[in-house]
């Protein structure tokens, strides 16, 4: 990505819009929870938008991602629509997974999102396997495996990083260090330097400010192109912060992090506000342009919520569908 703003106006505004889309999606999801309209709990991505958007904007539609329990941001950033996303969150038949997955399993295969995962670190193997698939089929798509700092506790990650390194697979391990896994700080859960855990396998590791969408995107562009050429795998540590609690119900957080800390990140390091300011300073977009985007997307989200609320639940008969895929007759005999 060149530093010349003019040639990239479209791309910049798209990144801005995608970050806004995530923020408004989450605001609405949180409202649904507070209004007791959402079944179960959900984990907000607010605050981390620059990570998902900076990376996914470096990807093609046929590139793959795997996501986490905190997966709405990745889903939006990889190209998903609001309506089927909200339908999924409400367990409706028009959801991406026909309501069967919900927030923690939202997937969007058409856009290469292989799905959120409710097992921390559970998709590390899946992402690595997707990269192996691409390499074997002679395709040049790349897979990004999103996971949190907490997932560094899962041994699976080390097993697959080793194989990815041995086989030089086109996979990028994107570790979103938002400083906490549930209610525990990363220092209490992870000994040593986070990047050293990939370097131990000879994997090139980077660390980047996860609140700076341009920095994230620049790095991602570079690594994705290199991975496409067979220079992977890579590991990226993205320093970021979640604004909400671990999940929507985690309201009293004082015992594990301070209000001051939260306020500081929101006021000083908000990825959307900061990027908006930069866009204005560079003369790429005025405050009006940005406000228009905000309003558009907020409107779109509200429309989608209304749509999803009115949408139908799956028929009772669907409960027993999709346990097994129907194997085409030709395969069966």
């Amino acid at each position, binding site marked *: 990505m060149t530093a010349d703003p003019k040639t990239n106006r479209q791309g910049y505004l798209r990144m801005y819009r995608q970050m806004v889309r995530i923020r408004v999606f989450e605001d609405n999801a949180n409202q649904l929870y507070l209004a007791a309209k959402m*079944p*179960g*709990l959900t984990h907000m991505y607010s605050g981390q938008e620059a990570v998902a958007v900076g990376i996914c904007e470096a990807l093609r539609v046929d590139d793959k991602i795997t996501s986490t329990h905190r997966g709405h941001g990745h889903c939006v950033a990889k190209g998903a629509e609001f309506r089927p996303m909200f339908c999924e969150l409400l*367990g*409706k038949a028009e959801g991406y*997974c*026909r*309501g*069967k*997955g*919900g*927030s*923690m*399993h939202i997937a969007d295969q058409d856009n290469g999102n292989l799905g959120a*995962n*409710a*097992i*921390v*670190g*559970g998709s590390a193997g899946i992402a690595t396997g997707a990269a192996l698939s691409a390499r074997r089929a002679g395709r040049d798509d790349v897979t990004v495996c999103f996971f949190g700092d*907490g*997932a*560094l*506790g*899962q*041994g699976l990650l080390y097993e697959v990083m080793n194989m990815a390194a041995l086989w030089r697979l086109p996979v990028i391990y994107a570790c979103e260090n938002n400083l906490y*896994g*549930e*209610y*525990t700080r990363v220092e*209490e*859960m*992870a000994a040593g330097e986070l990047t050293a855990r990939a370097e131990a396998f000879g994997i090139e590791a980077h660390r980047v400010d996860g609140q700076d969408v341009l920095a994230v995107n620049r790095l991602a562009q570079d690594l994705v192109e290199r991975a496409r050429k067979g220079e992977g795998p890579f590991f990226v540590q993205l320093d970021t912060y979640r604004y909400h609690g671990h999940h929507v119900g985690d309201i009293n957080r004082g*015992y*594990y992090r301070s209000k001051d800390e939260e306020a500081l990140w929101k006021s000083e390091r908000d990825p959307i506000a900061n990027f908006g300011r930069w866009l204005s300073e560079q003369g790429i977009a005025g405050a009006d342009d940005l406000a228009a985007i905000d309003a558009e997307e907020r409107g779109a989200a509200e429309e989608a919520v209304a749509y999803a609320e009115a949408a139908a*639940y*799956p028929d*009772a008969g*669907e*409960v*027993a569908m999709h*346990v097994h895929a129907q194997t085409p007759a030709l395969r069966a005999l």
Partner: protein
Amino acid sequence: MAEITLAKAVNQAIAEEMRRDETIFLIGEDVAEAGTPFKVLSGLVEEFGPERIIDTPISEPGFVGIAVGAAMTGSRPIVDLMFGDFLFLVMDQLCNQAAKTHYMSGGKLTVPMVLRTNLGATRRSAAQHSQSLHTLVAHIPGLKVALPSSAYEAKGLMKTAIRDDNPVVIFEDKLMYNDKAEVPDTEYLIEFGRAEIVRPGRDITLIGTSSMVQVALGAAETLAREGISAEVIDPRTIVPLDEDTILDSVRRTSRAIVIDEGHRSYGVTAEIASRIGEKAFYHLDAPVQRMGAMDVPVPFSPALEDLTVPTAEQVAERARLCVRGEVFDAA
């Protein structure tokens, strides 16, 4: 007697035992200040300190393995596994190591540890946070498996589990943490392998485990109003299983339904039903019925999830058919 929640009962059991025995410690994710996501352990770290209430990284196989080693060397660890679904992550350490160590060492090593976790669907937590996987561990020799169905049982079984010299897996129903029951003020234990006749009856035996005890009691209530007298039995531990109490009951009532929240196929209901079929055969007036969770991953949508778990009404209906002699061999 005081009325306390199931969560509180578990908390009390652990606290009482930890006061009694210095070698006990508790290990798991967010067990200390957070007191677990279900707040079951709140207050323990304040009393026992972080050396005995140990927060871990998100490393289930790792901390179960650590507990096994600690148990082999003089400690009595209690492992907190946040969701029963994560059992799949720790099966090697639990089933290849903990379960077999005593036997493989010819009785020389013991592994006195408790793994407490949960089961139960209908919490809108979808397929990876809603499973009832107790059958899997019940199949593995060397483990014991407890399924409390009330605050009273949760406390008594937990205390017994902690004192047992074997690895014990104890499943709490995550939907019942706030359910209250009377609990004695004085210390009590509940012996493993002793089923409880929760409600006596004459016409049919309903054997329910964990969450399904309430369902069976609900059905019995309904049936009573119709003049059908159902006996409800809660096995409390499925390893060891109190076969005698179950068989005695069925020999009296001559009919039985087994209800469990694990998946129906290859699950707990099969074991209990087939034991009845084997050992109370000549007393049976109707085929033993099995009711378990549907054989589907647990769906997120409330419209679907509620269909997957047996309800009191379904149990009552099945019982009616049994009593009326209207259960036939399906083709």
